[in-house]
């Protein structure tokens, strides 16, 4: 029983990081109706920022977090102008393909730079022991940092002018444009934020597990699941969805072989898409 509880708690901790990753994706969708299929490689780049900061530059690992956020933001804005701007208003397939094109390019460059070998950045963090179970320090810190960053996002969206503009554009772009909001700038800003969130979630994940250039893909799929669970365009929902997914994984791990868990996740994903298009949580609210 305690073992299951421990597994669940650990799942929730990791889930918070999933939620953070999904928040990036859901924010972009909510604001501009674009699914960022470069999400996975961006997470991967965040992972490698940790590697560069900690191993190549020898700095304390968690210093990578602000680095990823800053670089991620500017990278995201650049990506917006390269691949997304011209796709706004065009059929959804176009933005799916353009962001996927970026996905291919990033993976290609990443493979050229780092090959597909596994990388690991050992992070020393004292764990917490309880009832004979040790919760890894990095997991706790990652969850805490995810919560903090999510809180920062909340502040951005609800306590700043730019956040208000983002929410206005997400709600009704034409009306926002008519009110004098420079919607294109808002879109590029929002995209930058979304990419920064995805990147930093990668940095956090890299403190937990080893990774390769191709690792981002799994987390992209998980982000899809979480985004759909939480309701598209709903960052709070994404965080809850991430925790829920972590919970599902935590519950499932003691009972089924690891390779079965993705089946449960994808099954849930497709089911959710069909049955609860507005997300599990808004359906439960009613």
């Amino acid at each position: 029983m305690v073992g299951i509880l421990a597994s669940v708690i650990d799942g929730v901790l990791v889930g918070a990081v999933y939620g953070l990753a999904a928040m990036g994706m859901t924010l972009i969708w909510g604001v501009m109706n674009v699914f960022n299929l470069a999400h996975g490689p961006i997470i991967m780049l965040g992972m490698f920022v940790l590697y560069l900061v900690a191993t190549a530059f020898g700095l304390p690992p968690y210093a990578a977090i602000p680095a990823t956020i800053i670089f991620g933001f500017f990278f995201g804005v650049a990506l917006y102008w390269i691949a997304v701007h011209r796709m706004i208003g065009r059929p959804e397939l176009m933005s799916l393909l353009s962001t996927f094109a970026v996905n291919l390019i990033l993976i290609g460059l990443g493979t050229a730079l780092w090959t597909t070998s596994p990388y690991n950045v050992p992070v020393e963090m004292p764990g917490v022991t309880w009832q004979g179970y040790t919760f890894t320090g990095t997991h706790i810190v990652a969850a805490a940092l995810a919560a903090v960053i999510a809180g920062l996002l909340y502040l951005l969206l609800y306590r700043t002018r730019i956040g208000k503009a983002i929410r206005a554009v997400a709600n009704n772009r034409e009306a926002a444009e008519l009110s004098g909001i420079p919607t294109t700038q808002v879109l590029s800003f929002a995209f930058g934020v979304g990419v920064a969130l995805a990147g930093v979630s990668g940095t956090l994940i890299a403190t937990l597990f080893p990774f390769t250039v191709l690792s981002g893909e799994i987390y992209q799929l998980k982000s899809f699941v979480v985004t759909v669970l939480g309701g598209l365009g709903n960052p709070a929902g994404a965080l809850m969805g991430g925790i829920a997914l972590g919970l599902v994984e935590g519950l499932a791990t003691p009972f089924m072989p690891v390779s079965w868990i993705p089946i449960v996740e994808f099954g849930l994903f497709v089911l959710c898409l069909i049955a609860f298009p507005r997300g599990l949580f808004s359906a439960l609210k009613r």
Partner: protein
Amino acid sequence: MWRRAFPWVIASAALLYALFPYVTNDVQLRESLLLAAVYIILASNLNLVIGYAGYVNFGNIVFFGLGGYICLYLVNDLQWPVILAALAGAAGVSALALVFGLGILRLRGAFFALATIGVNAAIAQLVTNFEPWGGATGIYLAIDAYEPLGGPMQALWTIYLLIVGLMAASLLASYAIRNSKFGLGLIAIGENENAAAVLGVPTPLYKALIYSASAFLPAMAGGLYFFKSGIIEPGGAFSLRTSIEAIVMVMLGGSGTVIGPALGAFLYEESRGYLLTAEAFSHFQLVIAGTLLLMIVTFVPGGLLGFVHRWWPRTRRWLE
């Protein structure tokens, strides 16, 4: 349909395609053409759903992979003759597609695309855990499976011909559908689904039918292809990368046309073959593919044929 010129052109081209490696007895050419033919099959059938009905099937590779698995299992474990096994795979996958389709085709746009990714990933995972199908290692075909076809060498030629046949069938089917009432309804759905429904097009039925139909030939091709390869494993069978490359091929050649996807597939596959062999480029294959895709989507979304149609409008009539 045989009263028009176009189908004859397709049939003759396919005949030449089939005979060329025979005449030159060039095994390497045959292999290269076979791979291109497989991609043409994937792209043409995908085009039915993307180009005609406007639904983006990101997970289209699942038909190919599942068809391959069913065929190899029937041949290896139950000693079925390969053609029958491939047909059974095709029928099974089409039936499954109909069932799944009825569920996920209720979704629009990006949601549908995501759902197809989910379905592909779920099935890939299921197969990875399915011991009777070799789990994560997959199925290895016993060498004597090729005996009924006259041994491995002869079998390779037979498979080649069969696949070229499937390729011709795919193109002819695309043409027939496009010029039928069914096709008109599908294209109306692709243009504006709500308007099509108000006009009387039975949208749920048509979507499910084309989704299911688009699974048949790729599934059969999968059976034959993996039979030829002698092995099948989950990673290669359900590769999302390949699935999306199929979309790129459709876009490159011209989504919604008959030969566009085939052209796109052929060009892409041939240039990829060249790039892969040039050692310096192998890392950058993805970068090039990605850049190409970005260029197409940004500047020429109508693909090759779209470009031609725009600058020479008369070609719209005969160059489908």
